[in-house]
């Protein structure tokens, strides 16, 4: 199984440790993993804006970089959701369809494809608030959203519960959007910040020490909010916890 590692631009520049943890974690499971050096962005920021014209080139580059792999894995729900469901600014040739079908978010890949049952190397003795992003929940279905009736499931919580010492805290509004929303966080700054502040207070009310998420972009926003408000919460990508670092 040849896996292409998709590292979104903001992880590359700001949270390289999330990328490192993803690569190390997958190698621990014996996956042959390659990081194509020419990757930039999947086109999401432009496409989110409705700007098909300007997302097309980024989308084509993405497909060129990843078409040769059996699977493409990225530690970022919203970017993966874009590739899977909205990468449509370019003609849908067989390469494009292959890439779209074979791209997985990390939690999905661990849970559904590798069917991981233990992380013997991981140990995390903290109270954790879990943030599954909206893209991960309502886009990719890694957890059942609270709006839908039926038996609940939560793949990222299931993986985290395999980590020794880790305690997940409940939340008042577990799958309420934190207000990141890509460009929304700058174009609608007031509402976005208000949503972020409410989110951070939800963790605090439940004594979380760490916030863990499969989507670092939401955490970048939440972390920015918490720091500005002088709140001492720590934020980690789920790969870092499952891999036991780097922190």
């Amino acid at each position, binding site marked *: 199984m040849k896996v292409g590692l998709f*590292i979104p631009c903001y992880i590359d520049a700001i949270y390289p440790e999330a*990328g490192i943890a993803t690569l190390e974690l997958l190698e621990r499971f014996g996956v042959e993993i390659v990081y194509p050096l020419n990757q930039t962005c999947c086109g999401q*920021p432009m496409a989110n804006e409705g700007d*098909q014209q300007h997302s097309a080139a980024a989308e084509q580059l993405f497909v060129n970089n990843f078409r040769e792999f059996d699977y493409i894995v990225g530690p970022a729900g919203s970017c993966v959701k874009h590739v899977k469901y909205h990468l449509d600014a370019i003609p849908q040739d067989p390469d494009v369809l292959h890439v779209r079908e074979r791209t997985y978010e990390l939690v999905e890949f661990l849970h559904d494809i590798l069917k991981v049952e233990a992380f013997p190397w991981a140990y995390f003795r903290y109270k954790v608030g879990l943030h599954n992003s909206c893209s991960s929940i*309502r886009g990719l279905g890694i957890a059942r959203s609270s709006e839908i009736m039926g038996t609940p499931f939560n793949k990222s919580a299931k993986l985290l519960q395999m980590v020794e010492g880790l305690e997940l805290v409940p939340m008042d509004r577990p799958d309420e959007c934190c207000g990141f*929303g890509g460009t929304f966080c700058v174009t609608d700054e*007031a509402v976005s910040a208000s*949503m*972020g502040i409410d989110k951070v207070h939800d963790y605090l009310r439940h004594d979380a020490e760490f916030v863990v998420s499969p989507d670092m972009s939401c955490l970048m926003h939440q972390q*920015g909010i918490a720091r500005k408000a002088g709140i001492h919460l720590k934020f980690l990508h789920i790969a870092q916890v499952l891999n036991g670092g780097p922190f």
Partner: protein
Amino acid sequence: MEDDKKVDVAAQAAAFLAQDEVHEPMHDKNLWAARMKRDAAAREVPEWETLRQLASQIKEHTLTHLLQYLTEFEKNATSRGAKVYWARDAAEHNQHVWDILREKNISSVIKSKSMLQEECGMTAFLENRGITVTESDLGERIQQLDDQPPSHIVMPAIHKTREDVAQLFARNIGTDPANTDPHYLTEAMRNDARKRFLEAGAGMTGANFAIAETGSFVVCTNEGNADIGASVPPVHIASIGIEKLLPKVKDLGIFIRLLSRSALGTLATQYTSHFSGPRKGGELHIILTDNGRSKRLGMPEFWTSLKCIRCGACMNTCPVYRRSGGLAYGATYSGPIGIILDPTFDESKYSELPYHSSLCGSCTEVCPVKINISDQILQWRKVMAAKKYLPAARRLAFGTAGKIFEHPQLFRSAETMASGALKFTPNFLLYNRVLNPWGRHRELPHFAGQTFREWYLQYKAKNNEHGT
């Protein structure tokens, strides 16, 4: 200039948030409570998801056979003694109402909630012609006294505190401004309006559902006010959007079970009133109104928005709406459903609405008739971007970002520049000043000393040295 009349929803939402520490938290809390009650009510129905699926299918079937069902409805309603009118748009709708009132010499009407009559601007139209229009729904009456449109399709005055209402009533109907007891205020409103209820020459209602098979229609309320309107004055005028049709009486049960549970988490509305023809000695006029609906029906990406049963669940669940207040949208419909309906009335005026969303998708999943609201919001952005409705600065920034993402080398150098200058915004290359309010409520993220890519190159080199 065209741009002048664009609704700046982000700025208006910011103003709602900034007004004080009371309104937005209350608004958020009350609507979230409605969402929680909806969850609890839905959980009690094991076949909830099946009901949603059925409701969606019935609506899609009806909408794709609309002519047949409208014709059937007209025939059956007429044979039951109602008079049926057709209105292509708001002007024709209002004209019909005016003609009916004028012929009967009616100068005062009471009305219950009707979003269609809101859409048509009917109240202002009639008032201009000397007709007294009195809202009988409490929330609508509050909004009428405050000279504001409803801010929510089910709870029109939900953005107001009890204190706001006490002040408003004190100014308008002479209540004690210090008394904020809801029962006191409700009674005061009813006492004030009762005389007008009794004197009104006509009662106006909307309809939640119209049944083709029987030619009857159903109005759901919690205050029973539609029933006063329909049974006290001698003339009943009902405005019905052509998308309200259901084929058969037996379809109704599915929708009644979904509507009030989705809206407020109650099993049913307090009153579910069926109207089948005029009552003895009275008259029933039904105005079947298009007002943009058939145009919407012809839009491949947006026609399913016509399935909407106006339950308001998408508004209650929307984290952006809860923090914005409905008036911020500057339109008849607000919240997620408003974002996808309003641009069908005026693309330019409402071109910013589709951006007032974090695209979290909660609306889609809560909607009892399974409208893919969130996808349609993104689809509307594509329309706005393609038609160049975006502000120029924003278009330019995205154009530049697109260029940079297209070329790996450009991207690397931009990345280095960005880290050097610490001018980082989450959308990375959008460090245009216009787009840079990140820092107002947030600390800038710190750049790592080494990018992932740099780390990876070293890691590979090391592995190769060791012969792995």
